[in-house]
């Protein structure tokens, strides 16, 4: 059984015990425990179920590589699935439940799959469930989905906060082990601005666990001293609980800081995502131990040798009383020795190497541990935990020589440098046959914006396995980085460590070497996804020879650990099956993040009111206070209408229209774009921007104009006012302001840079109100201050002056067909001005109206609306706007495009008015159908509505639409089928429905 032993545990504080819950059981741990160490201390060997066969799963590792120990964490708004127990620090009140089983962890019905496993090899689902066809959606898939997935789906909105932080460094060191600290010290001594991040809460990495000696003292002492030294330097930042999540182009690095996961009671964000720019990255991320592939290597109680050692040394937890160690390298002996020293029993060390190990092996023998060379595990016995191990010759086919009782197995298949961060941005690897590992190829390093390598691996991450070599490499690589920064090398004495006399590792990809199919079907490669040696061999046999094919076919390495334990073993198994060398078969690309990071941290603080900006006009508060129903327009929210108590939106719109046409309405037009175009060449420029001739516009006058893209399509419209000889003011649509200003600047900066023109976007300088209706003039006269009579201020004219004491610019323009003034005042006075208009208009029962009333009134007048009559494929000629296209001009933006064959095709649909024969309203988006079908069997269409409304003014449905030969078919009727059957008949008519003569707006 796994338990807490009396002594040891360098990371735990035995004076501070914490209480937590697992599957409802109250358990005790110590401050400094991870959830995994605390569970093991409570003999909770079984922690979950595997993905496919629902096999019992126990902790196998002690860090980020853990594939098995995933739990549902927390509750309610703080619930999180798939939390890795080995990287979760326990705290008082932590609650966790195990995953992927029903009804209970101990008894899981899904475990039936393990007995069916013979029928469920890799890719079985590609070969089954095809017949009958309907069954996939209704029977097979629902079943597969139910049994898939790991953690539970959260139910509630996240209760925590998150934020981002932008930071810039010369050097970021990832990994707080001895290599990282030594490298940081070297870079910092050279004067570089350095950040050092360590994903766990503690500095030191492996060396401190393995009891290395540095400069004659313990690794612990070296780490403490170096950290203190670094802390004292003001060009160094040290961060624990921060993981290097991803490396991106141009020195962009994500630092995933888990600010309060270890203590949710802390104020502040839960996670802070650092978006770092750095000239150089030192990847001192260490290495991960590989499992060995033998039958039953997935039974709870079989752990990585290094993990067994970690739990013992860091947390004072023994996995078992009798631990059998199995290895193909010397490092695992450290585990045996540590266990023995802790007074635990190690019945045997199985060393697959015929020649056995080096100094450490000798040390183990001297301590009286039985060491068997050339031996292997034939099979691990046990169900939910290890009970015994059968021994065989590694060279053989698994003939059992002996079976030994034990409750734990510590395995080591060698070490793989953590090359993920080095690879994220394209760093390439080489296969080191001697050390049996992929290591970074420093000649093919990822490059930054200057074409310079910028991710430097150091220490174990660079394939240096001994303490001495690690420290030496860390110093050397840091000096390379210092040189790359163009800084001079600092003078410091590199720390030294005794060199170790270790015997070479031997590749062992299958145990025993000649294991038969039955054993291979029980030898796990990917514990979470249940991928076994036999699965990879099957994939190879079926021709899925690329490693990517095999991964995808078997799901090897696709689990939440992203193959940290399984990739190399799987690759080696594949190359074995293909009789190819490992480097030929290749490795797979590593994608960010290194380990999964919360989606919330990626979104940062952008939630709720700051999810996206909401732009507000100076009158917005009034709109909200008066029950406006808003619609998003770009980042603005404009009042759609102002419903009153008991009123539907439609009723409100109708009221607003009728009252405006009858007496007086107000529209907040502040969002309309206002752009100043000034300079000696302004006229020339305006003539290129607009299809109209703008240079001839008289000072004091306004003109409606159209703008097209260079591709010919109508992109914006609005009224232009000539302010003075050199100055124009261009009104754009609400959505157009920024776009059109950018459009102007683009042409001025990149095409006509010699033209003397300046532009300024003054949209927000002004609050603009449309005062509309027969009583518009009366209300302005009431305010007083300037002459707004027909004589003084004619239709399509503008004037500056004061109205009711407000500095105002008044435009006599109309988008509704009524007598109408658009009045611009300084934005900071917009609200008071609005209030003044309401007060003055009270006697006329003034009525603010929203965008829908605006749309209906302009439709009644047959005015087009950008976004309704246009959709990015419409040219002005389609809309009968030829009157607004100057024939005199040689050129304007979009003119050449409009000369293309399809643009001048007489078959282009043209704008007309549509009047339903029964007065009803044509549905939005309806198409008119013609005779027959096209070559693809689609009904031929001859037109579509672009705007369709109920007109309260006319008491009937009105519409505009684009129709084939429309203008030549006045009076004819066409059919608009409805989606729910039936159709509407509409007569083609002139598009102006209201006040055709235009007398009302010109009184």
């Amino acid at each position, binding site marked *: 059984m796994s338990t807490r032993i009396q002594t040891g545990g360098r990371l735990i504080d035995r004076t501070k015990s914490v209480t937590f819950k697992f599957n409802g059981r109250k358990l005790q741990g110590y401050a400094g425990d991870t959830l995994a160490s605390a569970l093991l201390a409570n003999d909770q060997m079984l922690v979950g179920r595997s993905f496919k066969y629902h096999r019992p799963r126990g902790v196998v590792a002690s860090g980020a590589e853990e594939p098995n120990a995933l739990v549902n964490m927390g509750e309610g708004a703080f619930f999180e699935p798939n939390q890795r127990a080995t990287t979760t620090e326990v705290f008082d009140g932590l609650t966790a439940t195990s995953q992927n089983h029903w009804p209970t962890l101990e008894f899981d019905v899904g475990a039936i799959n393990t007995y069916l496993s013979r029928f469920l090899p890799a890719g079985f689902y590609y070969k089954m469930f095809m017949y009958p066809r309907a069954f996939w959606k209704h029977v097979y898939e629902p079943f597969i*989905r139910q049994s898939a997935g790991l953690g539970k*789906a959260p139910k509630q909105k996240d209760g925590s906060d998150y934020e981002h932080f932008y930071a810039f460094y010369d050097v970021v060191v990832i990994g707080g082990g001895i290599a990282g600290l030594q490298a940081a010290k070297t870079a910092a001594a050279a004067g570089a601005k350095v950040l050092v991040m360590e994903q766990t809460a503690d500095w030191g990495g492996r060396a401190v666990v393995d009891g290395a000696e540095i400069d004659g003292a313990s690794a612990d002492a070296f780490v403490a001293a170096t950290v203190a030294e670094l802390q004292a330097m003001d060009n160094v930042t040290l961060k624990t609980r921060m993981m290097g999540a991803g490396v991106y182009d141009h020195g962009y690095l994500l630092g995933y800081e888990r600010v309060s996961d270890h203590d949710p009671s802390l104020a502040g964000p839960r996670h802070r995502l650092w978006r770092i720019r750095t000239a150089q990255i030192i990847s001192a991320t260490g290495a991960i131990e590989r499992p060995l592939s033998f039958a039953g290597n997935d039974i709870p109680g079989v752990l990585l040798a290094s993990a067994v050692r970690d739990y013992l040394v860091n947390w004072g937890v023994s996995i078992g009383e009798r631990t059998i160690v199995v290895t193909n390298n010397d490092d695992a002996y450290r585990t045996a020795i540590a266990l023995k020293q802790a007074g635990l029993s190690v019945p045997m060390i199985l060393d697959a190497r015929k020649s056995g190990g080096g100094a450490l092996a000798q040390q183990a023998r001297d301590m009286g541990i039985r060491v068997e060379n050339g031996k292997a595990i034939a099979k691990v016995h046990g169900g939910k935990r290890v009970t015994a191990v059968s021994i065989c010759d590694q060279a053989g086919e698994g003939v059992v020589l002996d079976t030994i009782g034990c409750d734990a197995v510590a395995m080591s298949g060698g070490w793989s440098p953590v090359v993920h961060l080095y690879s994220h941005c*394209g760093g390439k690897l080489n296969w080191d046959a001697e050390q049996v590992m992929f290591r970074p190829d420093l000649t093919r390093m990822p490059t930054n914006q200057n074409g310079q390598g910028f991710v430097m691996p150091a220490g174990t991450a660079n394939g240096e396995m001994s303490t001495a070599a690690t420290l030496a490499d860390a110093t050397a690589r840091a000096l390379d980085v210092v040189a790359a920064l163009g800084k001079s090398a600092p003078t410091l004495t590199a720390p030294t460590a005794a060199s170790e006399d270790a015997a070479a590792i031997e590749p062992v990809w299958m145990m025993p070497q000649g294991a038969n199919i039955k054993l291979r079907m029980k030898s796990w490669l990917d514990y979470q996804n249940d991928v076994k040696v036999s699965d990879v061999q099957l994939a190879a046999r079926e021709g899925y*020879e690329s490693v990517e094919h095999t991964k995808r076919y078997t799901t090897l390495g696709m689990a939440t650990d992203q193959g940290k334990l399984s990739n190399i073993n799987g690759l080696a198994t594949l190359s074995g099956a293909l009789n190819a060398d490992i480097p030929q078969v290749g490795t797979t690309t590593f994608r960010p993040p290194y380990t*999964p990071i919360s*989606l919330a941290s990626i979104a940062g603080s952008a939630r709720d009111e700051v999810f996206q900006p909401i732009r507000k006009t100076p009158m917005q508060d009034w709109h909200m206070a008066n029950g406006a129903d808003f619609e998003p327009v770009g980042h603005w929210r404009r009042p759609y209408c102002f419903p009153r108590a008991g009123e539907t939106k439609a009723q409100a719109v109708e009221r607003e229209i009728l009252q405006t046409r009858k007496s007086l309405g107000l529209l907040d037009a502040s969002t309309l774009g206002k752009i100043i175009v000034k300079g000696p060449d302004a006229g020339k420029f305006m003539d290129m921007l607009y299809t109209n001739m703008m240079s001839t516009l008289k000072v004091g006058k306004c003109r409606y104009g159209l703008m097209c893209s260079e591709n010919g399509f109508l992109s914006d419209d609005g009224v232009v006012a000539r302010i003075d000889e050199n100055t124009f003011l261009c009104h754009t649509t609400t959505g157009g302001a920024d776009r059109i200003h950018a459009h102007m600047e683009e042409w001025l900066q990149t095409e006509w840079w010699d033209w003397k023109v300046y532009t300024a976007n003054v949209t927000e300088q002004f609050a603009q109100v449309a005062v509309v209706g027969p009583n518009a003039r009366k209300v302005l006269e009431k305010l007083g201050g300037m002459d707004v009579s027909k004589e003084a201020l004619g239709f399509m004219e503008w004037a500056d002056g004061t109205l009711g004491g407000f500095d105002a610019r008044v435009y006599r323009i109309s988008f509704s067909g009524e007598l109408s003034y658009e009045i611009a005042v300084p934005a900071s006075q917009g609200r008071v001005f609005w209030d003044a208009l309401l007060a003055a208009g009270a006697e006329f029962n003034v009525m603010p109206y929203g965008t829908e009333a605006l749309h209906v009134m302009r439709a009644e007048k047959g005015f087009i609306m950008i976004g309704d009559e246009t959709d990015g494929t419409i040219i002005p000629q389609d809309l009968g706007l030829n009157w607004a296209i100057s024939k005199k001009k040689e050129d304007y933006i979009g003119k050449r495009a409009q000369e*293309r064959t399809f643009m001048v095709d007489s078959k282009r649909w043209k704008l007309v008015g549509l009047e339903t024969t029964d007065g009803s309203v044509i549905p939005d988006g309806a198409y008119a159908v013609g005779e027959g079908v096209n070559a693809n069997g689609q009904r031929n269409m001859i037109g579509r509505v672009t705007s369709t409304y109920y007109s309260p003014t006319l008491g009937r449905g009105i519409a505009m639409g684009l129709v084939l030969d429309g203008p030549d078919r006045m009076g004819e009727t066409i059919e608009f089928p409805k989606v729910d059957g039936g159709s509407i008949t509409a007569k083609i008519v002139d598009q102006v429905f209201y006040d055709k003569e235009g007398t009302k707006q010109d009184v």
Partner: protein
Amino acid sequence: MKRYSIFAVAREAARYHTGWDRAWASPEPKKKYDAIIIGAGGHGLATAYYLGKNHGIKNVAILEKGWLGGGNTGRNTTIIRSNYLQDPSAAIYEKSRSLYETMSQDLNYNVMFSPRGVIMLAQTEHEVRGYLRTAHANAQQGVATEFIGPEQVKKLVPIINIHGPRYPVLGGLWQARGGTARHDAVAWGYARACSDMGMDVIQKCEVTGVRRENGRVVGVDTTKGAIDCDKLGIVVAGHTSDLAEMAGFRLPIESVALQALVSEPIKPCMDVVVMANTVHGYMSQSDKGEMVIGGGTDGFNNYTQRGSFHHIEETVRALVETFPMISRLKMLRQWGGIVDMTGDRSPILSKTPVDGVFVNCGWGTGGFKAIPGSGWAMAELMAKGQSPLTDEFSMWRFREGKFIDESVAAGVAH
């Protein structure tokens, strides 16, 4: 070819699955083929498959410089829908969708087509009008879609927040027979079927030149030697410009990075595919339980298969707001693909200035859903020199100003 079925699996189980054949052969190239398809992605393999199946042209080689299905076929978010606005798009995507319905049976390879339904959310008045328009068009195009209200959206997607403070859900365009499929399986299934017809799927064979004689293609040079052919189909997505240059013509194509990501797997919580185009994000849940998420493309030419992180940020931000419960899920893996964008964001399936050379490209972000339809149409074009499904997608439409613009209905091409 050994037929796949539950009985075959049972039979094999008895001998520990030692008797399965290769899914596809890996032959050396012959001297000459009637037709060569460059690119063993979904589109290329489907083109070859229908050349054989529909037109009896079986002396065909599919050349792949890497491993089959290793491009965008294996990198996309597997959404299948045909609720497009413009006639030509609706025609080819609906053809494609209908072929997906029976693909597993046609290929005897389970591609797990899952017609779980696709919703495109309408979150502005403008989008509502756009999707109403699409629904009307689809009705005449024979594409089964409907515009549904917010309550129905909530019923179909319980985890959605329809009262989002910023963009409340005003409704959505619903295609009940849209869905997803297992992307790798599509490529593998076609490859197996092509191989079974005697076609040569040749991997790790890069084309280095296109040989022409008086304006007509006669073969290609490859890293495995010269190969003759009468007809050549270029179906290489992001790498099209390169091949076009070898063949001596230019295309209105730019290659940019498109990114996607998946969360860790959780128990089923979303049965349909949801696309939120106003906020640029779309999400579905795979059969494995991962939330599969995609978003927008970079704005600059890029061949690195690595996109810029801020797109991931924008997409995730949008989806956390739309589906608050995913906030505490974790991003398991992100990746990028290189997509080829045309001047109107619609594909090119076309003859070219070189006799016998045909090009199929420009699927941009929407290629996966089109695989069978694209293959079907391309095969017809190559076999007969004309296809009603490809007529409008000619490479010459830009000079005429005859665009196929899907963005007009606020629709996106994912």
